[in-house]
Structure formats: C-alpha cells, structure tokens
C-alpha cells in the first residue's frame, strides 16, 4: 500500500501502522493491535483532487446507517398501538433519547430530537460494529475510532449549536460567557476562561469518543494476542480477563453514545436558554 502514506486524514493511523509494523517484524512477535484501525480502500477514486475512495470505514458507516434504518422500518411496519416485541425495542430507544432531550433541554428542544436520535443511534451502532467478529464473514471495524469521524460529528454539533444560539438570541448569545452575579473585577479573568472552555467543547467531545473506542479496542486486541500466545497451557488466564472486559467494552460502547447525546442536549440547552 504505497499510496496510503499520503492521505492526510489517515496519517495518524498509518504512522501507527508503519511504526508498529516496522517494530513488530522481529521474528514472530505478537500480532499488531493497531492493524485493526488500518484504512483499506475498496474502490479508489478522487473527487476534485481529494481522496474520496470508498474505504472500509465508509463501508462500516453505510452498514451502521443501513442497520438503523432497516431496524426502525422493520420494527414499526405495523405501527400497532399495542407494540410487538420488536416494536417495543424501537420505542424504548425512542423514549430513551426523548428523555435525554426533554430532561436536559426541555420540551421546546424536541424539534432537535431527530438530530440527537441520529447521533445516538449512529454512534451506538458504529461502536458495536467494532465488537462483532464473524471470522471469514465480517471483520470488525469501528468507524468512530478515527478522530476524523468523531471530530466531524463534534464539529457539526458545536457549529450547529452556536448557530442556533446566534439565530435565536442575536448578539445576546454573548451573555453565555458572562455568568450572572459576578463582580466586574472577576469578569476580566472569568470571561476569557469561559470563552476558552466553550471552544474546547468540540475537542473534548470528539476526543472522548475517539480515545474510548481506540483504547478499548486496542486493549481487546492486546489481550486477545496474549490468549493466543500463551496457548492451551496459560491461555485461560488472559481469557478469564477478556470475557468481562469484552462485556465492559459493550457497556462503554453504549455509555459513550449516551454521553455524546446528553452532552449535545446540554450544549443545546445552553444555546436555547441562556441563563447562567
């Protein structure tokens, strides 16, 4: 893959692959845990000079979207008043996100519910797709374990929420950075701190999801390599740790989607109701 080193969006993972690949080729070491983040182009093509190939990351995202749409469509095809079991699951997902939006941002923010629901379901399914491994049929790939994907989502949330606040309050939006009841002397120090902490929101939102996914899945691969390396004799020990840890990774996948959704709602609440 000589052309992989030039793609700007995947430079970190490729540097990881190159560095770790060069280090691991010392005669039958453990398999490289960073290989799972490698971007493979299935259909290379360029758009306006930018690399817009259809990669395994794009495939994972398309699969996530298709799974969500297919599930909701299938669950709601009868729309019965008394839900069947599958429809109950879809209704539970709906009510779960509805509770998040209503309790943090209020009833009038329900206009933004489709956005928060899409974010929650997409992140949840993308996280879970990295944990399902059907050997020979489906190799797991977590599209949210790349900072470019999570940063795109976080930047969308940040820019969207800022624009919503500006369109709703005009210049009064700047009152967000001025907490009430603070003496004017402290405001000189406090307002820059508030502005800086506002601008670190997309960074923290994206890095939280990215780091959780990358670190978690790397640990899974590392302990899996231990199980394989120790074989029958000693392989039960890391396996004993792997089983609950995989369960923890399922919990983390769900929790990170929940945290992304609830922080989006909190930022939305900050923009819609500016009262510090």
């Amino acid at each position, binding site marked *: 893959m000589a052309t992989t080193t030039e793609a700007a969006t995947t430079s970190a993972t490729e*540097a*990881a692959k190159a*560095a770790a690949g060069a280090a691991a080729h010392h005669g039958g070491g453990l398999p490289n845990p960073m290989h799972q983040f490698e971007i493979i182009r299935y259909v290379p093509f360029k758009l306006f000079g930018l690399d817009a190939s259809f990669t395994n990351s794009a495939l994972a995202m398309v699969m996530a979207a298709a799974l969500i749409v297919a599930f909701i469509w299938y669950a709601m095809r009868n729309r019965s008043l008394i839900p069947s079991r599958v429809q109950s699951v879809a209704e539970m997902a709906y009510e779960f996100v509805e509770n998040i939006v209503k309790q943090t941002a209020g009833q009038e923010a329900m206009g933004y519910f489709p956005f928060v629901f899409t974010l929650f379901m997409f992140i949840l399914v993308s996280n879970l797709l990295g944990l399902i491994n059907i050997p020979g049929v489906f190799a797991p790939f977590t599209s949210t374990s790349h900072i470019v994907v999570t940063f795109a989502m976080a930047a969308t949330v940040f820019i969207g929420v800022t624009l919503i606040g500006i369109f709703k309050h005009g210049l009064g939006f700047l009152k967000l950075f001025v907490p009430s009841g603070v003496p004017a002397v402290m405001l000189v120090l406090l307002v820059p701190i508030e502005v800086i902490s506002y601008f670190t929101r997309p960074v923290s939102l994206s*890095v*939280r999801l990215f*780091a*959780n996914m990358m670190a978690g899945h790397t640990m899974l691969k590392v302990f899996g390599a231990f199980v394989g390396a120790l074989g029958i004799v000693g392989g039960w020990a890391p396996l004993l740790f792997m089983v609950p840890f995989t369960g923890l990774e399922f919990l983390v996948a769900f*929790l990170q989607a*929940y*945290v992304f959704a609830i922080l989006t709602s909190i930022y939305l609440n900050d923009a819609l109701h500016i009262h510090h």
Partner: protein
Amino acid sequence: MGPEAAKLIGAGIACIALAGAGVGIGNIFGNYLSGALRNPSAAQGQFGNALLGFALAEATGLFGLVMAFIILFAF
C-alpha cells in the same frame, strides 16, 4: 538517547495522567454509593448523572492517553 527511546519514555510519562482518571472515577461512584445508601429511593433517578460524571472524568484521563499515542506514533 535517540528519538525512539525518547518517544517511549515520553509516552510512558504521559500515561501517568490515567492515575487522575482512576481517582476521579472512584470519587464519583464512591459519592454516588454513599448517597444511595442514605437515600435509596432517590438513587435511581441520579444514576444517569453518575454515568455522565463517570464519562467526563474518564475523558480527561483519556486525553492523557491520546497524548501518549501522539507522542508514540505521530512524531
């Protein structure tokens, strides 16, 4: 000391940040448990806030881990 050795040492030092994550997460759930033992009926309603606090505390530790990865792989 070559750059490769310096990278490894730097990545190791950057991982000390995860100690803060451990302290923060233990703090959150410890307080949640002590509050839940005093007022069990109100515990379920605040569990969502406990999870939110856990994720935020873990995030700062993971920022340190990301710095370790950047030092190790992107320089």
